């Protein structure tokens, strides 16, 4: 079973706001994160990283480093197998193991500042760092390119002389930094523009930004003499990490047991391997555990940010507000290896709107920067920055309210998307109506203040998911989950679903994660899938347990199975049944389980289908200081259709968190590279993320249009809220100063420059 239909029924626990059962450890420091794990005799591993943006590796001499007292092993490219092209799904996009193994440890070339070249295991951090300085690498420095538009030019320095653009016919004869081209077409855009009475055409640019998780990557590997490996790591996907490590190390999956540690944020950035294979092989060579914890600088230099992008948008509309044509070109940086989220960005760029004539082209472009990783609705915020800014400009040109323009063209159930299928039951109109009705939307504004609106769409996903539910001998329930607690409150929500199904108090259900040996495969905890997919699995497992409970009571009470129903946490006589018997509670049945057939459990192994897309509408008020260009966010409201909020407070937390990240993306965050291709701001001091004092309280409105393909109507909610903020803030700044900024971030120097330029006329 991979999909369960929505059941509209009265609920007792789902929809309430109980305290989360796993909160105490997190607020008391008791929770154990990756860096908190230690084993006797462990060594410390450190990575040598490229100081160049692009260079051929002529030789690596580790002899001096190996001779340093306290150094126990060194690994380079020679310790890892080369891999051919081999594609697999992981995180937000396909990965190619040929590229994975090269990102993990450079082979022919280094392709970005920070690219790993070698790793050392030593008895202390200090000795390991000292050893890195003794490794001699002979580089042939090559020209580099870090700008996406520059990288697309025919004369750009090539990162990979064997890379030919896919998706182009005929197949190109010359290599290129454009790895892949996507194209989506519906109708006739030329005819659509011919009908238009008003045109908006703009070009936008965004920079790569990091997910900004507060916990750097950390892992601990222990390789036993018989080839069995234990790995503890901070990850969003312990099964995917197991798969990727086993693949690149050419070992049986069953020999590697991965334990996910508590995670201090991921947001998509912890779906991939980085140091894990290095730690495993260092452990193999030294016969000792090896622990590797990244510094913040390493996180910035070498783990995936999301793409920077160049976005061109053109819209045409009639004077009454009907959009007749929409075109976009999205050029995304993939970093050093192909695989930006330009494909998904291309598909969601215009999906909020019911359009007959659409053409979107997306280019995946390699540049000399770290390989991008997923970041919350990968690609969608970049596309939305362009499209939602253009929609705002169109509304102004038409003299229309921006929400009214969107309502007039809104996608609804049955709207044909330009990438293929019709949309099912969705809540975009309801979301827009709720935003329009919110008091924020009509609140007065003062001087130098402006209001902006923008909307977002994300597909959400399901995927492979397992769980196991065991009834303990006292009638409490142990719930073993395969998705991880990467977002605030998913485990509480899943426990609520099980408590609701079983009809017992929430306090009687205890959720846990396990290692990769304890359950079947689970896809990464990403894609807004955990409460959707694990929720569905929990329902399947709970109902299987209920079947066994009924079966057990039928035997105990000596009645036919059909005479037993499960209701309010008890096995009771079925309504209308002639067979009467004394009801039994879960605890009573559990107490007899060992003598009546053994432990009672339910489990689920599914590939959850039917994820319902989500829509969000954000309203923001800003005030611009015309002397400095500083933008202050005065008020922020996030409205979103979540299908069904299992625990409303945690859904609100997702909406606020996504909005906060989007605000940082809009106003300050960017990777700053010098002309030499070296990252200049690999730290939180100069990579400026918002802190609590930067933001007002973010108000939230939950809209519930149930997803018909989930028993509780759940739609994923974690990713949608990051999509709209960049455009909403750009629209607000435009309203405040009368100038539209098309380059992110809208940092003070950039805003001031626009103000000055406008004043000069």
């Amino acid at each position: 079973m991979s999909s369960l239909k929505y059941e509209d029924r009265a609920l007792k626990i789902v929809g309430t706001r109980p305290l989360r059962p796993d909160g105490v450890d997190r607020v008391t420091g008791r929770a154990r994160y990756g860096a908190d794990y230690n084993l006797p005799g462990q060594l410390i591993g450190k990575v040598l990283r490229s100081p160049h943006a692009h260079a051929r590796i002529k030789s690596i001499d580790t002899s001096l480093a190996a001779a340093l007292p306290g150094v126990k092993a060194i690994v380079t490219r020679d310790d890892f197998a080369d891999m051919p092209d081999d594609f697999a799904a992981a995180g937000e996009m396909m990965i190619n193991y040929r590229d994975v193994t090269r990102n993990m440890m450079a082979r022919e070339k280094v392709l970005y500042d920070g690219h790993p070249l070698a790793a050392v295991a030593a008895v202390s951090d200090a000795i390991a760092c000292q050893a890195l300085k003794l490794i001699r690498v002979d580089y042939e420095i090559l020209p580099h390119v870090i700008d996406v538009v520059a990288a697309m030019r025919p004369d750009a320095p090539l990162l990979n002389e064997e890379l030919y653009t896919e998706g182009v016919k005929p197949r190109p004869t010359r290599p290129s930094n454009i790895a892949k081209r996507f194209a989506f077409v519906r109708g006739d855009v030329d005819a659509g523009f011919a009908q238009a009475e008003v045109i908006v055409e703009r070009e936008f640019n965004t920079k790569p930004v990091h997910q900004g998780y507060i916990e750097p990557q950390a892992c601990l590997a222990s390789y036993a003499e018989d080839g069995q490996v234990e790995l503890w790591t901070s990850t969003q996907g312990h099964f995917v990490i197991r798969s990727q490590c086993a693949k690149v190390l050419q070992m049986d999956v069953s020999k590697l047991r991965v334990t996910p540690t508590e995670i201090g944020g991921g947001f998509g950035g912890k779906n991939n391997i980085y140091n894990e294979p290095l730690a495993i092989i260092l452990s193999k060579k030294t016969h000792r555990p090896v622990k590797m914890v990244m510094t913040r600088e390493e996180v910035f230099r070498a783990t995936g940010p999301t793409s920077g992008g160049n976005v061109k948008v053109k819209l045409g509309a009639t004077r009454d507000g009907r959009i007749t044509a929409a075109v976009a070109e999205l050029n995304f940086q993939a970093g050093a290896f192909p695989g930006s989220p330009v494909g998904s960005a291309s598909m969601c760029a215009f999906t909020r709107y019911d359009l007959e004539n659409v053409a979107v082209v997306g280019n995946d472009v390699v540049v000399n920067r770290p390989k991008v990783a997923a970041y919350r609705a990968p690609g969608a915020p970049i596309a939305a920055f362009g499209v939602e800014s253009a929609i705002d400009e169109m509304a102004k040109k038409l003299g229309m309210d921006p929400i009214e323009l969107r309502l007039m063209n809104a996608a609804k159930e049955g709207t044909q998307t330009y990438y293929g299928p019709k949309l099912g039951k969705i809540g975009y109109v309801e979301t827009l109506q709720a935003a329009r009705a919110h008091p924020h939307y009509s609140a007065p504004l003062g001087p130098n203040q402006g209001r902006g609106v923008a909307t977002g769409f994300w597909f959400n996903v399901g995927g492979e998911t397992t769980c196991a539910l065991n009834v303990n001998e006292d009638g409490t329930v142990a719930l073993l989950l395969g998705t991880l607690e990467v977002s605030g409150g998913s485990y509480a929500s899943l426990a609520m679903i099980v408590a609701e199904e079983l009809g017992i108090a929430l306090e009687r259900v205890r959720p846990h994660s396990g290692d990769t040996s304890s359950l079947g495969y689970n896809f990464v905890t990403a894609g807004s899938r955990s409460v959707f997919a694990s929720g569905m699995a929990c329902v399947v497992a709970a109902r299987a347990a209920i079947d066994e409970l009924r079966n057990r009571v039928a035997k105990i009470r000596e009645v036919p199975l059909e005479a037993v129903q499960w209701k309010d946490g008890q096995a009771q006589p079925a309504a209308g049944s002639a067979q009467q018997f004394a009801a039994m509670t879960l605890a009573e049945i559990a107490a007899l389980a060992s003598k009546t057939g053994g432990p009672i459990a339910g489990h689920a192994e599914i590939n959850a289908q039917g994820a319902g897309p989500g829509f969000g509408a954000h309203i923001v008020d800003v005030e611009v200081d015309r002397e400095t260009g500083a933008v202050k966010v005065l008020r922020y409201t996030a409205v979103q259709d979540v299908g069904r909020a299992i625990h409303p407070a945690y859904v609100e937390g997702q909406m606020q968190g996504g909005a906060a990240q989007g605000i940082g993306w809009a106003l300050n965050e960017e990777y700053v590279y010098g002309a030499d291709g070296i990252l200049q701001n690999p730290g939180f001091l100069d990579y400026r993320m918002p802190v609590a004092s930067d933001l007002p309280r973010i108000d939230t409105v939950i809209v519930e249009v149930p997803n018909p393909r989930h028993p509780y109507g759940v739609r994923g909610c974690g990713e949608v809220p990051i999509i709209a903020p960049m455009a909403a803030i750009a629209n607000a700044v435009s309203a405040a100063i009368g100038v539209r900024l098309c380059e992110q971030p809208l940092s003070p120097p950039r805003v001031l420059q626009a103000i000055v330029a406008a004043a000069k006329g």
Partner: protein
Amino acid sequence: MGCELAVANVRQLFQGLGERYPELAAHLDTEVAVAIDGEIYQDALLQAILNDSEVFLFPKIAGG
């Protein structure tokens, strides 16, 4: 690009498309999501396709 095929499930669909359009074959199993009469499926080779179903193929989605 559209066509008609006589298939009963997604696996047969991919086989048929791979035979008709060989350049697609390498991508179908790993990179493609399928919408059958508006409902989206990913990694669902055994999902039934009924007579007269409308099927769309598009890039897979995951997330962050």
